[in-house]
């Protein structure tokens, strides 16, 4: 198995390390002690471009359910709400990314992680599965982008 898989977003090669799993809302997750660490996938980061503002609407220690709204992000191109990718307790938010959101652009799979959850993640995907998911969702994402841009 290669170290990473690549998905072409137009001419941009989005890279997905094979050492972790991915969620339906475009985050990666990896084990961090007994908790799971989450960050944005290269696909999400490419859609957003430069991230300037990151804000969490829950505090560390909060119990969340998958799909709960937990924060928001603003970038050079877009705004978006962020949703919990798993059920459980958010044990940590990455203070470095909060203080300087460009860390997410610089090192999204490393220092630019977002938060850690102690709990259960359902519906996560192997990298290859995630790539197939991107293939089906890419058309819809483009339609959403073009539809809004045309407004």
């Amino acid at each position, binding site marked *: 198995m290669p170290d990473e898989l690549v998905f072409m977003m137009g001419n941009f090669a989005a890279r997905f390390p094979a050492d972790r799993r991915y969620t339906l809302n475009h985050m990666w997750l990896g084990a961090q002690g007994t908790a799971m660490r989450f960050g944005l996938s290269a696909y999400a980061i490419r859609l957003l471009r430069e991230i300037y503002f990151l804000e969490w609407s829950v505090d560390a220690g909060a119990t969340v359910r998958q799909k709960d709204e937990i924060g928001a992000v603003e970038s050079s191109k877009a705004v978006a709400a962020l949703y919990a990718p798993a059920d459980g307790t958010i044990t940590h938010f990455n203070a470095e990314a909060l203080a300087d959101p460009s860390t997410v652009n610089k090192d999204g799979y490393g220092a630019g992680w977002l938060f850690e959850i102690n709990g259960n993640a359902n519906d996560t995907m192997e990298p290859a599965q995630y790539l197939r998911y991107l293939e089906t*969702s890419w058309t819809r994402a483009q339609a959403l982008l073009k539809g809004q841009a045309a407004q």
Partner: protein
Amino acid sequence: MKMLTVIISKSPGQDPRKHELEESILAALVREPDVVVEVMPHLYDLGETDGALAALRSVTGPLAVLAWLYSRAIHWTLDRMGVKGQCGETQLHRADLENEKARGNASAPDAPSRTIWSLNLRDGDDPSMHIAELQRILCDLRATTSGTVPTTSAIPKSEIRNQKSEISLHRWYPVIDFGRCNNCMECIDFCLFGVYGVDDAARIVVENPDNCKPGCPACSRVCPENAILFPMHRTPAIAGAPGAGPDARKLDLSELFGAPAAAQLAADERNMALARTDKEAKPKDDLDKLMDALDDAKL
């Protein structure tokens, strides 16, 4: 002779283009002899103990505030801070202001006669556009105050220096547009967190802003007059945008990140905030457990 105080309220984020725009406007204004110009942290995040807020309140003359918020949000955020005045006309949004005036409600009923111009820095990347607008305002002021003594005094520097660090805490609370509010009390009935109260004149007020649940804009959705603003909400209509048109400058990608396909209902948002609050509540004591056991017992 200073005729106008200009406040540049900085962006809460780290967008270099925003900081560049702030700097360019500042550089142009410091050369303007009739203007006192000051830079402050993000207006909406200012707390009661911020030196910048005391400085703002000390300005009694004509005031122009440039911030990364919709004009209506700037005006009513200032109003709730006790910085009141008549809504100044701007060329950039003349039609919107006239619409509000047609409803008879551009300013609060108790606002003093001095004018406050609220300018949205998101209206354009070009500093010259904002500078030209400020110069137009100055021209109008010179024309109307000729022969009289200008009313603006310098802000004490110590007040500004006393401000919090650059990365201050981000706040979240509703701002009431008292030009629109008809005191119907839907919001106080709907909110479960004690954010709202009434003043001595039985008028609705945001009594406990910090009881508000970050991210929850539900009361704004139930307000029949669209008089409740959450200036930092991503939905332009809730953040105080003129009309209900989307912010053409940025896309909303929430759907890609897992937003429900249907529009979120106000009750869902409120209940989610409530559920969070319950989880934060202290564990039940023994008496509660006994009561629960009694409730569950099949008698």
